[in-house]
């Protein structure tokens, strides 16, 4: 399958049921965040032929012969997109995880959307800001006092990570690729209030790729916690 991401031509075939979000991240576009995985949070928003879509809901094969723009491709000719600059000026983020999707959405709003931001942004969830700084960014309100080199005390100085956040370069845990990393899956009992008498691991261990299965039998008798002081719990 051939398609273009941020001006870069890709020739790669997605898995049949793969969504565009996973496919893009597999190709190294980590500015496309994995959030709710069900089309609600908007962290995976990209432009498909210029139209904003939630890439976690889009079958990857539908990108064939089309152009995808992610947060990494929003800036042009070395210049930040006006919405990226606005988010820097208003510090329209806190942890910054939702910001790539938020900026992609904000950059695609028309005048009608801007009249009703609550409606326009209901497909983008932010757990940190309360949306005040995001609204400031979209409305062009600047909250940062650059200070022209003056002492930072008493001024609203920008977050150092800002430029990386608004360009999708900031890396979060899910964005770090460690070769050979094993993943852990927590399997809960499907039966509420059941008393577990024994756990048979044979079937799980027979699944290709499974390295180990840990159960209550592997829990140490003496327990430690990383919470608080990290002291042992007896």
């Amino acid at each position, binding site marked *: 399958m051939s398609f273009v991401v941020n001006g870069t031509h890709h020739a790669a075939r997605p898995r049949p049921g793969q969504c565009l979000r996973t496919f893009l991240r597999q190709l190294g576009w980590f500015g496309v965040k994995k959030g709710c995985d069900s089309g609600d949070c908007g962290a995976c928003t990209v432009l498909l032929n210029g139209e904003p879509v939630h890439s976690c809901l889009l079958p990857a094969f539908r990108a064939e012969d089309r152009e995808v723009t992610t947060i990494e491709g929003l800036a042009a000719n070395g210049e930040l997109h006006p919405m990226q600059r606005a988010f820097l000026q208003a510090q329209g983020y806190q942890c910054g995880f939702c910001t790539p999707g938020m900026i992609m959405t904000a950059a695609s709003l028309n005048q009608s959307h801007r009249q009703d931001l609550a409606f326009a942004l*209901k497909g983008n969830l932010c757990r940190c800001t309360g949306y005040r700084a995001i609204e400031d960014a979209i409305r062009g309100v600047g909250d940062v006092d650059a200070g022209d080199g003056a002492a930072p005390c008493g001024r609203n100085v920008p977050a150092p990570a800002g430029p990386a956040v608004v360009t999708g370069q900031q890396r979060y845990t899910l964005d770090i690729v460690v070769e050979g990393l094993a993943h852990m899956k927590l399997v809960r009992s499907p039966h509420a209030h059941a008393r577990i008498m024994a756990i048979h691991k044979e079937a799980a261990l027979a699944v290709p790729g499974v390295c180990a299965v840990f159960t209550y039998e592997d829990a140490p008798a003496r327990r430690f916690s990383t919470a608080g002081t990290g002291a042992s719990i007896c």
Partner: protein
Amino acid sequence: MDLNTITEIARPRRRTDVAGWRSGDAWLAGGTWLFSEPQPKLARLIDLTGFGWQRIEITAHGLEIAATCTIAELDATTLPRNWAAAPLFNQCCRAFLASFKIWNMATVGGNICMSLPAGPMIALTAALDGLCTVWTPAGGERQVAVADFVTGPQRNALLPGELLRSIGLPASALMRRTAFRQISLTPLGRSAALLIGTRCPRSGGFAVTVTAATSRPIRLAFPAVPEPEVLRARIEAEIPGTLYYNDVHGAPAWRRHMTFHFAEEIRRELAEAS
């Protein structure tokens, strides 16, 4: 999300390309629901976009909407000036819980086939006398009124292997005046009651279609705008208490209350001279 049990995407161009329907198959239109939840029972997706259906056709007889027409395309369609029902299209699009970005992917047919009580395309097309054209696996087709197509929450008249091809809205319905009412427990939330009234400019005929409040669409038609007590009695008679939907988006008693309230508001609005 990734659907890891999918092993094949079929992309038919013609109807005859569709190989035998089998267990584990699903039609793929926008994919916005299919890709929003794990689908462990599915193995093959049959992509409808390859058919290349014309998304919207406006004729003297009315409007034919392909099942693959996206919500964004429907919302952007300019309708003839004498179709007084035109504002209803945007009102129903805005009743989606989903973001406007989802409108670029989700389809009219998908929303109807999901058959959720709050499906706003069900409300729109049921209120405008929509008629579904269904392709049968044997190569034939049949037609079902939208109001009869949806039979309950996530239940509809489609048999295994059948496909919703299009939805037709007659010009006579599109020329009617309309009144729209919708409420959710939260601002911009999922509809807990969505009622649409229509009034025919020629005959004076009045109808109110109840969706979201009920498990399936209920359309109540009258030869003229009824008196309040007549409307109330008809709702009482045709919507038993058990038909009001019950989920986290609203208690049945509240949905019932809002149904009567909105129906009366609609009656008053459409009783006024245009």
